């Protein structure tokens, strides 16, 4: 299994607590914290974040505050560090031997790179969906239930599976075939199944790395609608090469350019109507990149 194929629900849980002192700097269940209205509360915050792969710097001095329960798009040319940034958030880069992270990345106030943070527990709070749909060779039901079972959340699994499938806008289409293989679904359905699997453990954040790039326009449209709905309950961060997609579905957009530099982060309409930086203007209008 490559790193790309790994999801938060595929890792074995060892500790339910991110921080050893609950109530001080541990996690809060922000997804369950009340009304589903959009807020400007910062859920994720990077400060002077640098990432290196060996000698090569992939992210350079990134400062960003990502709001809760909104969709944040991350765009930029190939090799600009946008996927690296995404993988930093739930410490997927820990799985890359040569990766080195400096600076701070705070999730709900707690630096996720502190020594006392368990990355596996972190990934339960920050789920991930990848570019290519990667369901397990199991039934639809077992695919969604997997994350719940490995966490020991095995009470009322069937209801939780159905809820996750419903939130992923897939239940209606698969209700009568929950015991069929997830691999028998279409590409678009498989991706929604993976989204259902990611949200079944009820994370706070869903990271998406080009989740619709392998899908046809109809399936893409369904995923985009779904992302909008998900943002009512979750904080969604999506890396995409498709700038129109970023413009359509996100509230905020972060533009990374060559050298792993976060050049601009603002409301999406500001970025696409009147960006502050000429380099961003040149990139989004196709003059370079």
């Amino acid at each position, binding site marked *: 299994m490559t790193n790309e194929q790994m999801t938060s629900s595929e890792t074995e849980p060892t500790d339910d607590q991110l921080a050893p002192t609950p109530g001080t700097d541990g996690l809060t269940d922000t997804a369950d914290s009340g009304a589903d209205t959009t807020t400007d509360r910062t859920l994720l915050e990077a400060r002077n974040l640098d990432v290196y792969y060996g000698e090569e710097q992939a992210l350079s001095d990134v400062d960003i505050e990502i709001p809760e329960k909104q969709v944040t798009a991350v765009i930029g040319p190939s090799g600009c560090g946008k996927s690296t940034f995404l993988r930093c958030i739930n410490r997927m880069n820990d799985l890359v031997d040569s990766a080195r992270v400096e600076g701070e990345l705070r999730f709900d106030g707690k630096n996720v790179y502190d020594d006392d943070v368990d990355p596996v527990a972190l990934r339960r709070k920050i789920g991930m969906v990848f570019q290519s749909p990667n369901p397990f060779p199991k039934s639809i039901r077992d695919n969604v239930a997997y994350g719940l079972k490995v966490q020991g959340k095995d009470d009322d699994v069937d209801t939780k599976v159905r809820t996750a499938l419903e939130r992923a806008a897939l239940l209606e289409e698969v209700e009568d075939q929950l015991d069929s293989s997830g691999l028998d679904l279409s590409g678009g359905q498989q991706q929604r199944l993976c989204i259902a699997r990611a949200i079944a453990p009820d994370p706070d954040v869903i990271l998406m790395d080009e989740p619709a790039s392998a899908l046809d326009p109809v399936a893409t449209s369904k995923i985009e609608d779904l992302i909008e709905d998900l943002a009512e309950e979750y904080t969604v961060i999506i890396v995409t090469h498709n700038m129109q997609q970023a*413009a359509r579905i996100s509230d905020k957009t972060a533009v990374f350019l060559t050298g792993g530099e976060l050049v601009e982060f603002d409301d999406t309409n500001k970025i*696409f*109507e*009147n*960006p502050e930086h000429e380099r*961003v203007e040149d990139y*989004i*209008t*196709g*003059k370079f990149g």
Partner: protein
Amino acid sequence: MARKSYQEKLTEIREDVLYMSEVVMERLRMGLDALEQKDEDLAREVIEGDGEINRMYLDLEQDCIDLLALQQPVASDLRFIAASFKIITDLERIADLATNLGEYTMDAERDLFPDVDVQEMGELTLDMLEDAMMAYDTEDTDRCRELAGRDDELDEFAERASEIVVRDLIERELDSTDEVERILQDVSRLLLTIRDLERVGDHTVNIAARTLYMVENDDELIY
């Protein structure tokens, strides 16, 4: 459509808008000349030329729609297309007003109010239109803001001209209904001419406002 041809298409739209504005300015000039010289042939040329302007407008409108649909422009490109889309509407309306001047020429008989200098008002509007299009071409935002002030002067000019006509009508002692009928049409045409030239001024301010938005994303002149 490749991205390279997209940039070429943007340049083409800019050039076509500028060309359309040159033709519109020429028609406005011809309309004013026709009025001054009571030249019915020239007036007819302006009226018959309106179809050409309408075709230019429709072609440019289609070009803008094609770019929006096929290239999904953003940022300055988006503002350029949105502004150009609105500006060609203003140019087309100015051409319609020039056509009106041609029609007034065909109907007018006499200069009843020599104190009302329609030509001077026409020159003011032509200068404003020329400057608005230069601002669009060179992205000159100072010129855009300055044009809004000049439109106020044009509005005052139009108000004074209308006052001259109304005052004269009140003071003029018309002896018979026949005499009233005789001048009614000419008075009406003159007031419409003043109103139309004042509207040309409004359209030039619209052009300046859209240009300011295009360059600086500033909508202060739009409303």
